[in-house]
């Protein structure tokens, strides 16, 4: 059905009127052209992907489409009618709604009130009837099949529930066209698949989506049509089915994308042989996260620690960097034990961390690139606790060149950079200390394809220089850059994959599905790794217990065995676990 939207010329007689149609949109900010003669057409009931690198003009298009900004030139039509005037909030909201990355619910109000914010009663002087409001909210949520209690505090919702609430709110205004701006960025795989199920269901009700994501796989999973923007201009629109991965990446980057596969595990020579001790974690126990977890990363090796949001892999990474105190267990860097719960001693021992949320933990936003990049090494920038401007400038300059950070100067505020370059600053900060161990949590979160490749390549280079690198992520692209991948599920390492693993097996392991055969990714090349050999033995006892918390909601899960209800806290399997991985 959606194919009609690809060529605007087609919808004449019998074709449906597009839900939204923008043509010839140009928008300038001072000297910068944010959009140049851009266009997009979204058919009713279509889910249309909009992809492009950071700075391609996606956000500008969103603000034009949602009436936040008027374009300099161009026309915008919703269901055939011209767009309302900028500023007429109510009129815009009845046509289009946007679910932003950043939450637009008010955490201290109930779900019901959030749904009917500013229209809780019929008139400004009419008192609000709370019972009635909750009833209406309940009915609205039920209409769209959102399983959320209307009386719950919005701040207590999960990210996914929050998004459902925002979508339901958008639909309640009568909008049949919804823009989703990176809706999956903060969701785990299970949440994503539930979100997608919901979106597919809504599409059947005739709701059209514009889906913006850096995650190309999601585009293929969900969308029927894709539009690519590059350098503020429209590049192409095509049915997803007809556009291969390579072609899509080429369209986004404007260059041939053969590099894409060069860094994956399969193509690379197998693990370098022991260049010395890197990171060893022994019997790590973190409150509410994991118990007796062990893993090791040799110097020169890149290891992935995969897992869904609830698996605890991020907390383990943060514990290694000294952010959480361990209840039991040791963390050794180059053979020496590090005091847990102390960032200072972790830094001193040589652990560099790329934290999960660059906005919250990574960057001091309105300070300069130089200051941010040298935040971890202020002790090296001058004698007796002073920070000499010249030294920090030259240090920062080195980091800027090393990581290819695109910034006007080292003194530019970091908030002025694009997402990819901000992330590079965070990585620069972690590398600034010249760490023995680099722990990177979702290092490519929210960055474009090119930056992603660059960052993963940079981590590889660090490993080649003799560092141990641990990439903690649930993104397959990140994990593909690793020599081997450990999978965590509910606080335990449940599987290990050598190079050349298959996507669905790894995903299945992350989801805790016992379908994955023990020797999942152990290709012949992995035989060189002693650890990979041990994996097969370790997985056999793991499999049944991992299955007990599985749901069938995940589409990726092949043949999940949902009947086994083995005890979760099987001490035996944990023991086997730590034996297998804890060398």
């Amino acid at each position, binding site marked *: 059905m959606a194919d009609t939207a690809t060529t605007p010329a087609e919808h004449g007689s019998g074709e449906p009127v597009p839900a939204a149609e923008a043509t010839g949109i140009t928008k300038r900010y001072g000297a910068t052209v944010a959009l140049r003669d851009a266009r997009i057409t979204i058919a009713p009931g279509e889910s249309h992907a909009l992809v492009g690198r950071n700075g391609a003009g996606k956000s500008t298009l969103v603000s034009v489409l949602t009436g936040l900004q008027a374009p300099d030139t161009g026309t915008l039509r919703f269901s055939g009618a011209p767009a309302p005037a900028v500023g007429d909030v109510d009129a815009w909201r009845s046509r289009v709604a946007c679910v932003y990355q950043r939450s637009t619910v*008010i955490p*201290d109000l109930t779900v019901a009130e959030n749904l009917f914010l500013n229209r809780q009663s019929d008139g400004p002087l009419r008192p609000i009837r709370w019972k009635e409001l909750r009833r209406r909210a309940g009915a609205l949520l039920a209409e769209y099949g959102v399983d959320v*209690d209307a009386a719950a505090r919005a701040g207590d919702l999960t990210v996914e529930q929050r998004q459902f609430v925002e979508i339901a709110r958008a639909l309640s205004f009568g909008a049949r066209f919804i823009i989703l701006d990176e809706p999956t960025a903060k969701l785990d795989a299970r949440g994503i698949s539930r979100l997608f199920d919901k979106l597919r269901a809504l599409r059947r009700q005739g709701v059209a989506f514009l889906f913006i994501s850096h995650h190309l796989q999601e585009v293929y999973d969900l969308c029927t049509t894709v539009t690519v923007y590059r350098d503020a201009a429209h590049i192409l629109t095509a049915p997803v089915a007809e556009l291969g991965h390579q072609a899509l990446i080429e369209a986004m980057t404007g260059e041939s994308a053969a590099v894409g596969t060069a860094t994956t595990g399969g193509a690379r020579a197998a693990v370098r042989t022991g260049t010395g001790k890197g990171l060893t974690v022994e019997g790590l126990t973190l409150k509410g996260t994991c118990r007796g977890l062990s893993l090791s990363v040799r110097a020169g090796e890149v290891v992935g620690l995969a897992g869904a949001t609830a698996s605890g892999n991020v907390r383990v990474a943060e514990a290694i960097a000294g952010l959480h105190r361990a209840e039991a267990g040791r963390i050794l860097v180059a053979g020496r034990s590090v005091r847990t719960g102390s960032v200072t001693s972790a830094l001193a021992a040589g652990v560099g961390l790329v934290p999960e949320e660059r906005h919250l933990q990574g960057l001091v936003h309105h300070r300069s690139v130089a200051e941010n990049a040298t935040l971890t090494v202020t002790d090296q920038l001058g004698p007796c606790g002073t920070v000499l401007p010249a030294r920090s400038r030259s240090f920062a300059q080195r980091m800027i060149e090393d990581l290819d950070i695109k910034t006007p100067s080292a003194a530019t505020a970091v908030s002025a950079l694009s997402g990819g370059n901000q992330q590079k600053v965070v990585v620069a900060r972690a590398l600034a200390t010249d760490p023995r161990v680099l722990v990177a949590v979702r290092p490519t979160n929210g960055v474009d394809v090119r930056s992603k490749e660059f960052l993963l390549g940079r981590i590889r280079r660090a490993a080649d220089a003799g560092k141990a690198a641990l990439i903690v992520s649930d993104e397959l692209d990140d994990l593909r850059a690793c020599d081997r991948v450990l999978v965590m599920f509910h*606080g335990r390492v449940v599987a290990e994959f050598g190079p050349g693993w298959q996507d669905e097996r790894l995903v299945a392991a992350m989801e805790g599905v016992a379908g994955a055969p023990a020797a999942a990714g152990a290709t012949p090349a992995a035989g060189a790794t002693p650890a990979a050999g041990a994996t097969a033995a370790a997985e056999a006892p793991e499999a049944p217990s991992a299955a007990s918390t599985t749901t069938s909601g995940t589409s990726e899960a092949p043949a999940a065995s949902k009947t086994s209800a083995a005890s979760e806290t099987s001490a035996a399997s944990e023991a086997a676990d730590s034996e297998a991985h804890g060398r």
Partner: protein
Amino acid sequence: MSATTDVTESAAMTGQAAAVTNARRGLGLGLGRFRELSLVPVILVLGLIGFIVSPAFLTSDNLIGVAQQSTELSLLVLATAFILIAGRMDLSLESTIGVAPVIAVWLVLPTSGARFTGLGLLPQWTAVPLCLLVGIVIGAVNGFLILKLRLNGFIVTLGMLTMLRGLQIALSEGQSIVELPSSFTYLGKASWLGMPAAIWICLVLFALGGSALAWLRHGRALYAIGGNAEAARTAGIRVDRIVWAVLILGGLLAAFAGILYSGHYGSISATQGNGWIFQVFAATVIGGVSLNGGKGSVFGALTGVLTLQLVVNVMTLAGVPPLWNQFLNGAIIIVALVISRFASGEKQE
């Protein structure tokens, strides 16, 4: 690991998540309500202590006295509660309470014949409306500086506080003004149905304010704005307009508090309101209103005022030397904060 007993059906996970959410909500709401009431036990304990230390405590004269003394402070607290819930601050309230009456009487008092000479521009009955008008103007100017010029609200109102205090001293030549129009002193002095009019007025204003916050769209909008202004804007709330209205309302309430205060003591003291803003903020915050906006209630703020006033009263009755009042006032603020921190279970940041 998880405490749920189930099950392997496909809905288990969502059901579980919902159950967890429900549990957390139940807890959160319970504690949230509790936070609003968290000072009520403190007030009861203070009452008990007062009853023990002095037979004079539980007399209607004493209690009405405490209430009367609370009225002016509580109006500022009402204003501050509104402003803080909307995510703003207005320090200049404590100067408005003094300068608004001074400007009003300066405009209406005759040019000769008394210690304080005014301009005599307007008839004396206009003193009350003039005073309220001055409050409105001050709030509007604050709003203009903060919302139109986008200046930092804290510093703007800090400057306004100092400036208005200076204006009051300049106009009144540093003296107290004792010759007030009778219309001006009526509300502060009058007694209706056996209670000072000021108490009735305060009760009504608090009831109105509380109801507006609970049952009116524009009242709820304050929570939305304070909680997430961007989200409020996308929901179609006219954020700037409402914040401006709240700042004006704040100035108006402060000016009205000035009328009650002047009437109550029969004069406009040169230091009227001086240093109150600390008590006002303390009372509002221990009453459960968040300094970061979006949280709290008018009722909670009222319990905050009463707590502070009762402490002073009980101390006086217990014979604690008044020189210790300030120390104890500070101590009780901190203790009350600690109590409400643990009663609500939420960090205050």
